[in-house]
C-alpha cells in the first residue's frame, strides 16, 4: 500500500525543468533509495515533497495517505508525519541540543531526549547542554538531527545524503536509526550514492534529468548506476533499453 503518491509532478526552477512528469508511489513501511547523478533532481524532489519555500509551485499532485499536499505548508506536513533530514544540517547559535530535540519530539521529556541521543551514539551527559552550533562537527550535527527525527516519531522520513560528511561510527548509528524507523513501520526515502547505505534499502528508484527512469531491486538499479552514471555516459539521456537489460 502506498503512503506517498506523486501524480504527474513537474517543477520549473529559473526557467529549467528540474522535475518532469513524475508519477510514482512509495510503499508504506519500506526503505526506499533514490539514486541518480548530480543534478538529476533528487534533492529538489525531497524539497518539493517537504513543501519548502521555492518548491511549492509544481504542477501535478502529491498525496499523503490519499490526501493532497498541495497548499499544505511545511509545518502542517510535519504534523501529518513527514520530515526531512538535510544533507547539511543547520547550525543554531546558542540553541541547546536538548531544546532542539524536544522542540519537535512527540514526547518532550528529558528521558526521550536522553534515549534518542544514546541511540545515535552521543553521550547525553556531554551533549544535552551543548549548542547546535559551529562547535559541533558536521557528523555530530547529523547525528543530533537524526536524534531529533527519532524523537519526532514520523511516519515518513526524507533523508538527503545521510552518509555525507560523516565517519564510519556515525554511519553505523544512521543504520541503527534506519532499523528503528523500519521497526516502527515508518517509511524512509533516502537520497544516496553510497553502496553501504544502499544495502539497507529495500527498493531503489533511478532518477535522471528530473525523471524517474526505473524502479525495482536495489542491486539492479545500483548496478546500472555504477556502470553508466559515474561518470554519466549518456549526457543525461539514459538508455532505457540498456537499463532494462541490467540483471539484478
Amino acid at each position: 500500500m502506498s503512503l506517498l503518491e506523486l501524480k504527474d509532478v513537474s517543477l520549473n526552477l529559473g526557467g529549467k525543468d528540474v522535475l518532469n512528469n513524475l508519477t510514482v508511489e512509495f510503499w508504506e513501511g519500506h526503505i526506499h533509495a533514490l539514486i541518480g547523478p548530480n543534478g538529476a533532481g533528487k534533492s529538489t524532489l525531497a524539497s518539493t515533497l517537504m513543501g519548502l519555500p521555492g518548491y511549492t509551485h509544481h504542477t501535478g499532485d502529491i498525496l499523503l495517505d490519499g490526501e493532497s499536499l498541495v497548499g499544505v505548508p511545511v509545518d502542517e506536513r510535519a504534523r501529518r508525519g513527514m520530515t526531512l533530514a538535510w544533507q547539511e544540517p543547520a547550525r543554531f547559535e546558542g540553541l541547546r541540543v536538548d531544546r532542539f530535540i524536544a522542540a519537535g519530539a512527540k514526547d518532550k521529556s528529558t528521558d526521550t531526549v536522553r534515549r534518542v541521543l544514546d541511540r545515535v551514539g552521543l553521550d547525553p551527559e556531554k551533549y544535552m547542554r551543548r549548542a547546535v552550533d559551529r562547535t559541533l562537527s558536521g557528523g555530530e550535527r547529523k547525528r543530533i538531527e537524526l536524534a531529533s527525527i527519532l524523537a519526532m516519531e514520523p511516519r515518513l522520513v526524507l533523508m538527503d545524503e545521510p552518509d555525507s560528511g560523516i565517519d564510519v561510527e556515525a554511519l553505523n548509528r544512521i543504520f541503527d536509526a534506519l532499523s528503528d524507523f523500519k521497526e516502527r513501520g515508518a517509511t524512509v526515502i533516502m537520497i544516496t550514492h553510497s553502496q553501504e547505505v544502499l544495502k539497507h534499502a529495500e527498493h531503489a528508484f533511478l532518477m535522471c534529468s528530473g525523471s524517474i527512469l526505473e524502479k525495482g531491486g536495489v542491486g539492479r538499479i545500483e548496478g546500472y548506476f555504477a556502470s553508466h552514471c559515474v561518470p554519466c555516459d549518456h549526457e543525461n539521456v539514459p538508455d532505457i533499453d540498456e537499463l532494462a537489460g541490467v540483471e539484478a
Partner: protein
Amino acid sequence: MSPTSQQVETARELLASLGDFGGHVKGDDIAHLEVHGNEVVGSHLVPGFEVDVDPLEDGIEAHIRVKKGVRLAKPVHLCFGMLPETGLQRIVMDVEVEEDAFASVQAHCTFPNAVDITHKMDAVVRIAAGATYEYFERHLHGAEGGVLVVPKTKVEVGEGARFKTEFELIKGQAGVIDFDYEVDCDAHSLLDMIARIWGRGHDRITIRETARLNGEEATAVLQSHIAVKDEAVADVYNSLAANAAGARGHVDCKEIVQGAAIAKAVPVVEVNHPRAHITHEAAIGSVDSKQLQTLMSRGLDEEKATDLIIEGLLG
C-alpha cells in the same frame, strides 16, 4: 538593623515577581541585597564583602568593597526594582574589588507592573590587579514595557585582572534602554562583555560599548545579540581600541530583525600599535531560512520556530 515587617513583605513581593526567572538565592553563606525604590528592604553580608548604602531621594548610593584576597565562593545576589506602576529608581554604585579578590554578582532588576518607571544606574567599578569581578544583570519587565533603563558604567580593569559582564533583557517588554559601558583595560587583563536584548512593540534600544586596551597583552570580547520585532528599534555602537603591544580583541554584533523593526550596528575598531590586533563581525537580518525550515519540518509553526531560534541566540 532588622528590617520591619513591611520591608520583609516588600522584599518578598519583589523576589516573588522574579518567579522562576530570577534564581535569587539566600543562605547564611550568600551575600544579598534587595532594594525597592530608595529603600533597602533586605540584606545579608559575608566576611570580606562590605556594603554601605546611603539613601537618596530617588534611589540609593551603594559602596561595595570586596577586600583584598577574598574569594567569595558563592555568587552575591542583588535585586533592584519597583512594584508600583510609576516612579524613579536611581542606583549610584561604587564598586571596589581589591587585589586578587574574586566576586561574582547576580543582579536582578524587576519592574513587573511598570507603566512609567525610570531605572538609572550610575556605576564606577575598579578592579585591582589580579582580581576577578563578574557582574550578570538580568531584567524582568512587565508586558507593557513602560520602563526607561539607563545603565551607565565606567570600569577600570587592573593589571592581570578580569571583568566579565552580561546584560540580559529577554523577558517582558524592554521599554527604552540606553545602555552605556566604558571600560579601560590594563596589561594582561581580560574583558568579556555581552548584551542580550529582545525588543518588541515600540521598544527603543541603544547599546554603547566602549573598551580601550591600554596595556600590553590586554584582551577583550564585546558581544551584542539583539532581536527586534514589531516596531522596535535597536542601535548598537561597539567601539574597541587596541593601544598596546599584544593587545587583541573581537567585536561581535548579531541582530535579528522581524516585522517593521529596525536594527543598526556601528562597530568601530581602532588599532594604535603595530603588534595589536582586532577583528569584528556584524550580522543583521531576518531569521535564517534554513534554521526556520528545519524547525518547521519538525512540526513547529513559524512563530514558535522563530521564537526558539531567537531564544537560542539570546540564551
